[in-house]
């Protein structure tokens, strides 16, 4: 069931950034620009809304999104995550800030360049699928290609393999309304993959699906990603989903990033009470991997894989004579050891710093 949580070896997660977001602000309202300075000086979201009628969408976002990895952006509704992802292909214009892709300034693009950028560099999967209801599955998947000006016949042929890769062979001539939600989103995913764009933007792509179907879709995505190595920006409000598919996670609250890091870092070192609360219900035994509690040194006997979850490690540790195991990386090289005590204490979640201190 627990398909091994994606391995992150430290070397790879340092991939050079594909997408850089710097000092990004978005203030919704007719005079958004004039409130940049007050926001920089710390005016609160509520104050801005009550006194000036403007909504603070994004507040000083800085994020480097590494190439070929899955960057999850997580937050509850209203945290600005959908706003943020729409800045990457400029469906929403920022109030101020910088966004670059491969060191190319997105914000400096003309409408024509932007269109070309959207056709070739990015593609997007939507929460409510956003398929064209009057077109068949095959036509929907081919949509991005026809927009690029390819002949519909050619585009349909090319899109065939993507229909197959998401498991929809035989449904080519159906209409979206004849498919279940999960199948519709497979069409959405195939449509996004068909253009071969290196950046895939997924806006709560699986949030509208049943839990089981959602897990299916996550597996499809992770399987495809093994071959495709796309730079994926994945929005979700679901922590389990974030931990499962994210190579990196950024947590957003009230338009501000409050923590970014890989899943292990987020669980082991939550930045504040808000995040501690957020992660308090997860199954730590399944999520925490031994490399997060690894110490220096080595041990005789059985070796554990660095990405082995605690749940599995506990039994092995318990069986070992001195309750210690070596930890090896994916090439089999010893990189440290774990002890049973460390594993057990990692299962207890850290207490909130101050119980009384309540966030809004």
């Amino acid at each position: 069931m627990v398909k091994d949580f994606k391995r992150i070896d430290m070397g790879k997660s340092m991939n050079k950034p594909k997408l850089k977001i710097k000092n990004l602000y978005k203030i919704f309202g007719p005079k958004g620009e004039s409130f940049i300075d007050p926001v920089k000086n710390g005016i609160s979201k509520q104050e801005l809304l009550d006194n000036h009628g403007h909504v603070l969408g994004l507040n000083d976002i800085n994020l480097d999104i590494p190439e070929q990895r899955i960057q999850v952006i997580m937050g509850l509704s209203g945290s600005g995550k959908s706003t943020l992802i729409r800045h990457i292909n400029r469906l929403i214009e920022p109030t101020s800030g910088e966004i670059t892709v491969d060191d190319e300034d997105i914000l400096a693009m003309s409408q024509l360049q932007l269109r070309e950028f959207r056709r070739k560099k990015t593609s997007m999967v939507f929460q409510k699928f956003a398929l064209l209801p009057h077109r068949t599955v095959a036509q929907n998947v081919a949509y991005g290609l026809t927009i690029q000006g390819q002949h519909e016949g050619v585009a349909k042929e090319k899109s065939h393999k993507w229909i197959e890769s998401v498991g929809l062979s035989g449904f080519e001539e159906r209409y979206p309304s004849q498919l279940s939600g999960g199948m519709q989103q497979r069409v959405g995913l195939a449509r996004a993959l068909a253009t071969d764009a290196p950046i895939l933007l997924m806006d709560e792509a699986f949030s509208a699906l049943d839990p089981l179907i959602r897990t299916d879709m996550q597996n499809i995505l992770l399987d495809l990603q093994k071959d495709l190595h796309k730079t994926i920006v994945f929005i979700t409000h679901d922590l389990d989903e974030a931990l499962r598919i994210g190579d990196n996670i950024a947590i957003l609250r009230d338009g501000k990033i409050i923590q970014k890091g890989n899943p292990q870092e987020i669980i082991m070192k939550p930045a504040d009470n808000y995040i501690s609360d957020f992660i308090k219900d997860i199954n730590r035994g399944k999520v925490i991997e031994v490399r997060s509690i690894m110490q220096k040194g080595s041990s005789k006997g059985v070796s554990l894989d660095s990405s082995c979850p605690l749940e599995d490690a506990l039994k092995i540790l318990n069986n070992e004579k001195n309750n210690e195991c070596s930890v090896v990386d994916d090439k089999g090289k010893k990189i440290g050891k774990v002890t049973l005590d460390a594993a057990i204490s990692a299962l207890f979640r850290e207490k909130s710093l101050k119980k009384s201190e309540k966030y809004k």
Partner: protein
Amino acid sequence: MDWLAEFPSLGKRDLRDLKKGIDGSFREWSRSNGDAIEAFFDPLYFFLVWLEKLLIATPWPIILVLVAAFAYLGSRSWQLALGSVVSFMLIGYFGMWKDMMATISLISVATLICIAVGIPIGILMSRYDRVQSAITPILDLMQTIPIFVYLLPVVMLLGIGRVPGLIAVCVYALPPIIRLTNLGIRLVDKEILEAADAFGSSYRQKLFSVQIPLALPNIFAGVNQTIMMALAMVVIASMIGVKGLGMPVLQAVQNQYLTLGLMNGLAIVALAIIFDRVSQRYGQRLQAHRYGKEHE
């Protein structure tokens, strides 16, 4: 305190002069430009006459076959096709065949003009809010102004006959298709439009591959309304010399010919029902994909 009892108005003489002045200058203008304007509408006139003659000259069995084909292809319903043919036969049997052909040719041309003019205007309105707020009051005006008020200047300019009749019909029948095109495009799901944008569609691509297809049911409701309103204008158009089923109705009203009025009136109703059902069914079939088979 006299001034409180009577509303301050432009003096009678001034008012008369104002009206006279405007009337005079319009008459002057129409006299000097009437020919040019008439010449401008000449192609339309010839087309109308040609279509009417063609319909009348076509042997009636062929017309009946065409009617059956049109009704069946539009609605995919045998009953409706049969009903249409029977209605046509009855109308012909009671001696109204030629008038019916004249009416059909007028309605067809009016509908085509309304589609050709109305849909582009509707698209423009949906794209620019400014155009929408400029055109909406004009549409309100077209729909509510008493018909005779604009019939008068049209007759002064173009005299009586088919073309002024056609213009009068179009003025009345145009608003629904404009409104419904605009509405239909504006109602297209925002998420789907966002998806089209995200894949880099140009405005044109978005319009033709997303907005218009998804707005078609509404646009078609507009076409349907336009046909209905054009038919409703048939009698009034006959007042300015348009031949067809309206003319006998007008005569009946003037001379108290009860049966004549009833027969022609019912013929108009029959035409209206046929056009309405066929175009409605066609519009429903256009959105068949929306009612796809239920899953699970």
